[in-house]
């Protein structure tokens, strides 16, 4: 058979299949429905799983970019988002910080010390309690926690140990319920006067929104009296170096402490990569599970196609006989029914893709769920639908192609 003849056959097969499908629209629709639902749910559920993963990831990177945090105290897993970080006994020393700061800039970009305790805040006749954090001017950049009004304290404020404070938005609302401009106002922290220089942006986390930030030098002199710190925040140069950086710091700090292993150390390092890895790992597993369940419904849809194709072959036995008498070879009959099965499954797949997008859009618009359709899921679900059409249409088509023309012509 020449290439042109093949092309003619392919075109005619498609035309015949379309005609046969259109001649029984309701049945065709019901047959394809299984595939439609299967493809739509693969795409829709994957979109939900993926959306959830992205949402968590963006919340995590909201903590700061390439963040490593050295904590005082016993290791407690990767508690980067631990709720309580106040009142940790400060056991990190100037030697630790000096080592970290001495690392090359392709490992460490910047660092910020941090200690905190609860403090009593007062403005005029209003009182509130907040976490008072003593830290360095780098803190906003490292923790991705910036002033929304005013400006954060500077190196000069640090050197002069000025009594200046950047207040969290919740603290601002409690101390200044009339919404007045707080810049320049003097509030008291544990009885000491502090000038308000900034309001921090809202983070939606009570630990941050109900905190106030003062220069570390001021904190050391006026509140803690300790030279040590509870936390060292580190911004690594890139995500690629974070594990290398973590082990470098761990080794040096163990050496400084003359402690053989992390199990016995009085510090631990939380790595943003671990957390993102864990969370996205969970999200990926979840997505895979959902897609797997959806794929089963796609498989069931395929069985529906096989069922109807078998009925269709039986119903059209005489037609097959006529075609064979007129010169149709086995493979002509086979391709005709295969084409029909694939058109059903691919058509169902196409509708399913549209429905999947619609589902994802609706989940976002009306369900308030993060939902992102991935091109991969569309491609995989659609190809799977076509493969299912080929696979489950294959047996009926093969049966049709093996009919004896004499028997088929005699079939009533």
């Amino acid at each position, binding site marked *: *058979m*020449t290439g*042109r*003849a*093949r092309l*003619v*056959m392919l*075109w*005619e097969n498609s035309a015949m299949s379309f*005609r*046969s499908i259109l*001649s029984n629209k309701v049945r065709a629709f019901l047959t394809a429905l299984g595939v439609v639902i299967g493809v739509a749910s693969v795409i829709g559920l994957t979109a939900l799983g993926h959306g959830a993963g992205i949402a968590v990831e963006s919340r995590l990177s909201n903590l700061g970019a390439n963040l490593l945090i050295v904590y005082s105290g016993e290791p407690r897993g990767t508690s980067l988002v631990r709720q309580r970080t106040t009142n940790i006994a400060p056991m990190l020393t100037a030697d630790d910080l000096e080592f970290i700061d001495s690392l090359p800039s392709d490992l460490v970009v910047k660092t910020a010390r941090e200690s905190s305790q609860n403090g009593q805040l007062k403005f005029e006749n209003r009182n509130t309690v907040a976490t008072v954090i003593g830290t360095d001017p780098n803190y906003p950049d490292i923790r991705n926690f910036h002033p929304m009004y005013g400006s954060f304290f500077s190196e000069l404020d640090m050197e002069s140990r000025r009594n200046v404070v950047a207040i969290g938005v919740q603290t601002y609302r409690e101390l200044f319920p009339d919404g007045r401009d707080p810049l320049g106002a003097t509030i008291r922290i544990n009885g000491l006067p502090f000038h308000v220089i900034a309001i921090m942006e809202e983070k939606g986390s009570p630990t941050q929104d109900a905190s106030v930030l003062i220069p570390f030098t001021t904190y050391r002199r006026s509140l803690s009296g300790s030279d040590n710190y509870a936390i060292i925040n580190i911004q690594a140069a890139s995500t690629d170096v974070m594990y290398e950086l973590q082990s470098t710091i761990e080794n040096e700090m163990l050496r400084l402490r003359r402690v053989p292993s992390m199990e016995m150390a009085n510090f631990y390092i939380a790595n943003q990569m671990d957390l993102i890895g864990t969370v996205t790992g969970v999200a990926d597993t979840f997505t895979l599970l959902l897609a797997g369940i959806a794929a089963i419904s796609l498989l069931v849809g395929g069985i529906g196609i096989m069922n109807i194709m078998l009925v269709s072959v039986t119903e059209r036995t*005489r*037609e097959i*006989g*006529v*075609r*064979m*008498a*007129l*010169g*149709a*070879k*086995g*493979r*002509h009959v086979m391709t005709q029914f295969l084409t029909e099965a694939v058109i059903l499954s691919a058509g169902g797949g196409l509708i399913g893709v549209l429905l999947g997008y619609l589902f994802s859009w609706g989940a976002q618009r009306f369900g308030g769920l993060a939902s992102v359709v991935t091109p991969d899921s569309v491609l995989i679900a659609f190809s799977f639908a076509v493969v299912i059409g080929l696979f489950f249409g294959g047996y009926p088509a093969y049966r049709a192609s093996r009919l004896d*023309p*004499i028997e088929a*012509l005699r079939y009533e």
Partner: protein
Amino acid sequence: MIHISDIHKRYQMGPTMVNALGGVSLQIEAGEFVAITGPSGSGKSTLMNIIGCLDSPDSGSYLLAGEEVAELAPDDLAEIRNLRVGFVFQTFNLLPRATALENVELPLIYRGIGARRRRATAQAMLERVGLDDRMTHLPTELSGGQSQRVAIARALVGGPALILADEPTGALDTRTGEEIMALFEELNHDGVTLILVTHDNALAAHADRLVRLLDGLIVDNRAGVIV
């Protein structure tokens, strides 16, 4: 055109073997109009199926247009049918969802001929059988006689070596049946080789030659029979 020599064909029917053809030899020349008759069970249908390349004999030789076709595989037989044989059935066997024109195009599709040439050839063939005004009608919109004309056009469209008509008037009233027979005679007059399979002796009388089968053997093979 057709050279059949010593063909045997046996069928398993339930527990017994049926000798459908027990050594049949037959020659049909191009342009002939031959009727094959015989009572049911005579082997008439089996012979027709073998002549039409729908079936193969167990033994013997069958030369069709100079080509030995007795031992071809199913797909090769399909190709021979497509190129050499035109079928006309008792119940027309038009595809119900295809128009008259599309039905006539079918054999050309399996020959891989492009749409434009196919259409033109099929149109010409429908005109020849007198259906210029029914080309886009579906079989359900055609009378019995019109349907059989479509079927004849379909049988003719590929320019076959022979037309095999199996009780072509069996589903038609007498008058329409006579019209169809007149069309066959006209086609034969134009040079088409025609084999008519029937149990109706009156119909067989239209043919130039009569071949009668009984119990799987040819018992009568003569020209110009009048019953």
